[in-house]
């Protein structure tokens, strides 16, 4: 009888097994199971930045991860519970505007995930999270309500207490599928959730402005290393240092809502690339030593965050510090800035505008030289015009630092726009390589190279074969664009790898934070890829070979005035004679002493420093985004109750069976 009972039980189990079917999984182990349960999403975060009066940017509201179900954003929806909102690329502006105005909507936002841009998207609308007049407080003129960037919405300057991530192309599909699954799912007890890890140390420590967070060491100041170089190298030991200096500058940093996707292709990297190409063209000219003026080039960083690079450079010039040895402030005759030039191409004609501050003899000379250069490039269809006279002054540019310091500085900014930015994606993650045109950059580079030659050679050999011999290497421009503005080939391209071993492949031009003590000869580990590449490239292009040229310079260069180029590549650096130096770029209101940063009180001799917000970036432990499916807590409890009841029922069944069996056996 007992056996029959056992038979029945077995058959029941057999039936149960048949009704359960599954799927051939390709998982091989428990870690594989774990990996298919939790999908790690690669995304670009928006982080917490602080200034003297408060915070901007995004952060988890506490110390915990934020977990919320994924919901797609449609303009009319109202959120019923805290959700992770998936926003498509063209809805960013309307979404953030809605947050600002609708507090009940904003209260239910646990986190925001922004999709990557669709290639078929309508690109004519434009998107700029910067303000309408970026860095207006530093302008050397009164009219700060002028709108250089009318598309600007200013959303990157607000503070958000929820995490925001930008997705890459591959992860956009994953998130869209998860959102659709949530919408279509009939089962109320499961949902696909996103788990945000954007816990910022300043939130945890409760330090909500730069001064306290620097004191508590929960943040670091923004900054980096600017690079300057002179062509030909300045002979420091020589007593003849009275050549007037023509300073040509460009910026290497940009900003955006998402810290790791700040390419800044048009603003300002197009200017940087054209200046590099111009330097390359000039370096092949004979008779550079006979130039009557000294050409100095400088590439600033930190400009997007209060002109940190240019302000610190001028400060170091005043101090006559080691970083700027060989430069004398009083010798700077003209300051020329190459701003955004990448959009100056329209139907075969390359058009640029010169923005000047005050009229002076040096400025007039530069404008004449530009005209001369334009004429020598007749076949290129380049037109250089002065900017609209109704502009209040120069556009946001590093020249503002020079003018604030000395309003009589002769300066000129070369841009591709006249009275408003032609860049519809200023300081956004969409200002990428498709936003610029290489012909415009080549044209600007040719223009700048020939103008500088004309200015520096003082009209003597200004015409003829020497001038027409200056030509820009088009393939160099395209290579630089591919290396500095695109992930493929990115910083692993041959040109960059010739000089440095880069830390990452995808280029990014956010200024970053300044690590450890700022110094004039920083250890290579503390300098970012861009500055190191620029230093090596410039040192190589502006160099004259040293005597013992083939010696490897791991122990430094014996010759005074010589530097070691290509040190990181295969350990074989070369000593060359070149004047190429790093200048630290950080706020003039900060001082690093005994391992800690302190904010200096405002000083009336530093008017820009008085207006400086002193930007810092919060520290963090880890940043990440995960997506997985969760089931309702009630379901979990049901499973637990089922398990316990199965156990208890089995126990009761066994006890009953045993009693029955004992009785049955006793009867026998």
């Amino acid at each position, binding site marked *: 009888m007992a056996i029959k009972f056992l038979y029945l039980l077995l058959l029941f189990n*057999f039936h149960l*097994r048949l009704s359960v079917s599954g799927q051939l999984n390709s998982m091989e182990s428990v870690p594989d199971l774990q990996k298919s349960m939790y999908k790690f999403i690669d995304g670009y975060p928006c982080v917490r930045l602080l200034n003297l009066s408060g915070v901007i940017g995004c952060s988890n509201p506490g110390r915990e991860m934020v977990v919320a179900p994924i919901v797609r954003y449609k303009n009319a929806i109202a959120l019923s519970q805290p959700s992770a909102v998936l926003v498509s690329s063209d809805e960013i502006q309307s979404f953030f505007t809605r947050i600002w105005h609708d507090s009940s909507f904003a209260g239910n936002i646990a986190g925001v995930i922004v999709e990557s841009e669709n290639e078929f998207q309508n690109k004519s609308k434009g998107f700029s999270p910067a303000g309408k007049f970026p860095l207006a407080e530093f302008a050397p003129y009164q009219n700060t309500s002028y709108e250089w960037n009318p598309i600007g919405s200013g959303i990157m300057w607000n503070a958000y207490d929820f995490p925001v991530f930008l997705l890459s192309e591959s992860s956009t599909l994953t998130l869209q599928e998860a959102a659709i699954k949530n919408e279509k799912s009939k089962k109320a007890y499961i949902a696909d959730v996103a788990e945000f890890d954007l816990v910022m140390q300043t939130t945890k420590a409760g330090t909500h402005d730069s001064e306290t967070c620097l004191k508590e060491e929960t943040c670091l100041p923004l900054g980096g290393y600017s690079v300057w170089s002179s062509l030909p190298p300045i002979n420091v030991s020589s007593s003849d240092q009275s050549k007037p200096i023509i300073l040509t500058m460009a910026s290497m940093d940009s900003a955006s809502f998402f810290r790791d996707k700040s390419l800044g292709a048009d603003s300002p990297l197009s200017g940087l690339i054209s200046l590099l190409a111009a330097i390359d063209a000039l370096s092949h000219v004979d008779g550079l030593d006979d130039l009557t003026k000294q050409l100095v080039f400088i590439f600033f960083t930190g400009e997007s965050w209060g002109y940190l690079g240019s302000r610190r450079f001028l400060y170091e010039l005043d101090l006559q510090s080691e970083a700027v040895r060989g430069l004398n402030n009083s010798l700077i005759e003209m300051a020329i800035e190459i701003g955004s030039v990448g959009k100056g191409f329209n139907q075969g004609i390359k058009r640029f505008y010169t923005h000047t501050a005050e009229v002076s003899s040096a400025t007039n000379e530069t404008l004449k030289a530009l005209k001369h250069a334009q004429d020598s490039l007749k076949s290129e269809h380049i037109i250089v015009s002065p900017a609209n006279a109704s502009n209040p002054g120069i556009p946001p540019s590093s020249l503002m630092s020079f003018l604030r310091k000395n309003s009589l500085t002769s300066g000129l900014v070369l841009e591709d726009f006249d009275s408003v930015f032609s860049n519809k994606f200023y300081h956004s993650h969409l200002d990428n390589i498709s936003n610029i045109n290489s012909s415009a950059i080549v044209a600007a580079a040719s223009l700048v190279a020939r103008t500088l030659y004309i200015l520096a050679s003082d009209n003597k050999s200004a015409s003829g074969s020497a001038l027409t011999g200056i030509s820009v290497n088009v393939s160099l421009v395209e290579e630089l664009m591919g290396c500095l503005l695109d992930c493929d080939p990115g910083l692993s391209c041959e040109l960059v790898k010739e000089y440095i071993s880069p830390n990452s492949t995808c280029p990014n031009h956010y200024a970053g934070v300044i690590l450890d003590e700022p110094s004039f000869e920083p250890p290579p580990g503390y300098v970012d890829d861009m500055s190191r590449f620029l230093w090596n490239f410039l040192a190589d292009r502006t160099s004259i070979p040293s005597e013992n040229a083939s010696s490897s310079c791991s122990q430094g260069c014996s010759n005074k005035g010589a530097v070691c180029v290509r040190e990181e590549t295969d350990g074989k650096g070369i000593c060359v004679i070149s004047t190429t130096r790093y200048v630290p770029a950080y706020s003039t209101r900060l001082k690093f002493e005994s391992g800690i940063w302190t904010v200096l009180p405002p000083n009336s001799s530093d008017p820009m420093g008085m207006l400086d917000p002193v930007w810092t970036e919060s520290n963090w432990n880890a940043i990440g985004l995960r997506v997985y499916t969760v089931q309702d807590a009630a379901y979990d409890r049901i499973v637990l109750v089922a398990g316990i009841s*199965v156990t208890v029922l089995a126990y009761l069944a066994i006890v009953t069976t045993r009693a029955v069996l004992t009785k049955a056996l006793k009867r026998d």
Partner: protein
Amino acid sequence: MTLAAGIGYALLALGPSLSLFVSVISKKPFLILTVLSSTLLWLSSLIVLSGVWRGFLPLKSTSRWPYGLLIFTSIAFQEGLRVLFWKVYKRLEDLLDDFADRVSKPRLYQTDKMEIALAGGLGHGVAHAVFFCLSLLTPAFGPATFFVDRCSQLPFFLVSAIIALAFVTIHTFSMVIAFNGYAEGNKVDQVFVPVVHLVAGMVGVASSVYLSFISLQA
């Protein structure tokens, strides 16, 4: 799915065996030894099988029949071992009976013999459940759950726990039926057990919920 769900799944798979252990097995130390030794025997059989099959794995076929062959040979080997287990048990029974005679204590009752068989079966079942369900359960204690495409009504861990429960039951009672069959010479019983085991295993291949785990263990 959190701690509650994880414990729930573990109890679902091994709860009845725990009850059985607490109420029947733990009362007699000999039965505990039997459970442990049959667990060891079952695991050793898996190791031997994996040694034999190592050369052919991983099975790169998209069709099911190599897995079917793997399961068939494994089950055949384990059934063969069951016969061996029976023979060892028979020898042990004779030894115990002789010992009982010598100390003038009663011989093994029918219930004692069935309890030993039950303990043997439980050992097999617990080993299967631990190996094929409990080992996968660690992710179940985290916040996420997992659904397999072919069975999207139940979470994967629930399916795995139910299957483990079924196998525990099969193994436990198979041993009792088999020993009974060998003792009484009942051919039906002797054949019934391997057939049920084989069919359950083949259905597992057909449903292929955790086929690759099986190939992993082997």
